[in-house]
């Protein structure tokens, strides 16, 4: 059994239980044993004075590239990066090679995660076979094996009839259907947001309508299906139009959630002006107006999860022409500080509200009993130094890939310790 851990004098933030106060947290075994003023001695005492003690952070959108592209990332390297960034749980996307589309694939991810012994690693399965958008994948078997949701992420399900079938079928299970909203007919061969910059750079653009048209379609499908248990999650929304659609859907109490990434809150299409492929990402970086709309959505509580969409790629691939290079930004290891910069520094969220979007709410989306420091819950805890200023250095990343446009940024907010299942897995 793990030694008892007593975290003393921290600012304990547990949004699920409405806690935000200076106190102690006691961990016995793999469980939270007590919260409050604790006099009892413990084998291991951590002084958290001046630090935040929060539920372990959860990122429900990462790409760890295993199986198939282990030169870019593995579950071992990705989860090492995650734990160093304060994440105790992550959700891998199933667009691996081959994709995660049956129970054996799901079990493979879990086995690799157990061997790595860093974070909890969940996975989504594909919604359709081979992510082709034509035939449903074996969602039932995958759910039984522990898949926490289904998506063809990397692309959206194009055929509305197939999407309708997927939503209906999945209603049999208590799972979330997640969508990368992108209508390919609108997106064409685009490589960045369509607008002034795509015009002068001579690059094919992706119209915001590509995202909004599919999101609108899915919302209409959900209205008509009148779901029982089904939950729909819009992945990495990026446009002002999408925010409006989500606002309307939530007003009508549809079971729809959404997430945003740090890059869609911090970077605009203008970043592509020098053809730096580290800014090539899908959905593409949009305009300042879209950023404002997304921030407003976060402020209003329309956004349910903050995610990285950590998408590692080899340097040799990112050294290609902007037109040819793959989409993706690797940002797992600086995620917390990026969200601090995007949301806390401008006064959009306070710490408890930010932590809620990185713990309790994402846990709910994927339906796992995590994201809280409730007594008796599994002891996933993150200790954060909210004042620590540092410079992001890609060379120090544990991730195998450094396709990160934030290299050299000065940021605030660093993870000091990460405790996963009662075990200290990371210490700064």
């Amino acid at each position, binding site marked *: 059994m793990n030694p008892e851990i007593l975290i003393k004098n921290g600012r304990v933030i547990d949004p699920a239980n409405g806690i935000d106060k200076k106190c102690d947290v006691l961990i016995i075994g793999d469980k939270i044993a007590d919260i409050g003023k604790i006099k009892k001695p413990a084998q291991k005492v951590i002084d958290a004075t001046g630090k935040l003690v929060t539920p372990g952070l959860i990122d429900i959108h990462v790409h760890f590239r295993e199986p198939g592209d282990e030169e870019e990332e593995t579950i071992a390297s990705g989860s090492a990066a995650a734990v160093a960034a304060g994440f105790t749980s992550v959700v891998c996307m199933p667009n691996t090679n081959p994709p995660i589309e049956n129970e054996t694939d799901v079990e493979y991810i879990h086995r690799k995660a157990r061997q790595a012994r860093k974070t909890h690693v969940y996975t989504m399965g594909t919604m359709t076979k081979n992510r082709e958008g034509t035939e449903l994948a074996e969602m039932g078997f995958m759910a039984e094996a522990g898949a926490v949701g289904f998506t063809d992420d990397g692309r959206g399900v194009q055929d509305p009839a197939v999407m309708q079938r997927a939503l209906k079928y999945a209603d049999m299970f208590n799972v979330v259907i997640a969508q990368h909203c992108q209508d390919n007919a609108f997106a064409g061969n685009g490589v960045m947001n369509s607008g002034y910059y795509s*015009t*002068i*750079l*001579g690059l094919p653009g992706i119209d915001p309508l590509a995202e909004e048209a599919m999101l609108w379609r899915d919302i209409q499908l959900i209205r008509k299906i009148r779901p029982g248990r089904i939950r729909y999650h819009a992945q990495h929304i990026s446009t002002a139009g999408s925010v409006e659609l989500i606002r309307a859907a939530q007003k009508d109490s549809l079971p729809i959630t959404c997430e945003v990434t740090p890059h869609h809150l911090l970077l605009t299409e203008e970043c592509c002006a020098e053809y730096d492929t580290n800014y090539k990402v899908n959905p593409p970086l949009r305009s300042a107006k879209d950023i404002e709309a997304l921030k407003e959505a976060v402020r209003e509580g329309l956004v349910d999860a903050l995610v990285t969409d950590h998408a590692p790629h080899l340097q040799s691939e990112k050294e*290609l022409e*902007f*037109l040819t290079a793959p989409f993706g930004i690797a940002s797992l290891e600086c995620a917390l500080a990026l969200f601090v910069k995007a949301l806390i520094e401008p006064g959009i969220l306070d710490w408890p509200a930010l932590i809620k979007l990185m713990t309790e709410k994402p846990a709910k989306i994927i339906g796992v009993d995590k994201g809280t420091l409730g007594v008796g819950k599994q002891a996933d805890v993150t200790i954060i130094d909210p004042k620590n200023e540092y410079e992001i250095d890609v060379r120090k990343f544990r991730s195998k890939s450094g396709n990160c446009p934030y290299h050299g940024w000065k940021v605030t907010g660093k993870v000091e310790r990460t405790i996963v299942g009662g075990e200290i897995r990371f210490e700064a």
Partner: protein
Amino acid sequence: MALKRKSKQFKWHRKHLLGLRELSVEEITYILDTARGFEQISTRSVKKAPPLRGKVVVNLFFEDSTRTRNSFALAASRLSADVIEFTKKVSAVSKGETLLDTARNMEAMGIDIIVIRHGAGGAPKLLSRNINACVINAGDGFCEHPTQGLLDVYTIRKIKGTLNGLKIAIVGDIAHSRVARSDMWAMTKLGAEVIFVGPPTLIPSTASELPVSVSYSLDEVIEKVDVINMLRIQFERLGGNPFPSVREYSHYFGLTAERMKKAKHDILVMHPGPINRGLEMESEVADGRNSVILEQVTNGLAVRMAVLFLVNQAAAIANR
């Protein structure tokens, strides 16, 4: 020779020519003035001058080209450089040697100037950031084709004296045209008013943010412009079905002898070539008295000599 007439203070410093958007009015004017000095080399009995002697220029062409490639090759050899031709057709997704590796290999062989044409916007910039040789953009995707833009304004300036105050129509597939973009930057910087003319499906939807006006009616525009530049319909770049048929396109946007009757008598008719005769322009117009299409080709040689000369000079200063 050429340089003596130059404005006193100005110093050319760029060892790459990537696009015209980033050039100042002074820089553009300086290239045009330099080109004027080189024009007479092509009319001598010995068509050769020594400034690039001992230098190696590689024509790195990933897309089809006859005019531009030959023009650069000839320009380089008239300046006494050795020229290597490297032609490789690649699809955007095909694996194999990367662009940077190809260029690095070239550089390892000791080349001095890379003239690159590539299907991806920004490819010349990618090279310029990663290698030491000079890089000249000979057309990148639908981003820019700076020497075409330069030879267009050179041709207009030579005949009209100035671009200041001229009205210029650029007609056709603006959305997929690097020529339209380079023309737009050069012409507007030199004081001309540019009008993009074409069907809405071939005009960038963000044209209102560009320094141009837009018209969907060639009939309205033709009466008031001093220069008309007819773009080639680039069937290879058109996605989908931006106009219903060639017949209907020609009806609205073809430069016919009939339409020319409404034009100013001294209008200049330009085309970057190769012409789809009968589609964007009737032969009668292409070969007519207002056409300067072949002058454009002749001037292109002088402009490219000037560009090769200037980037080489800037590199020599930078490496000193």
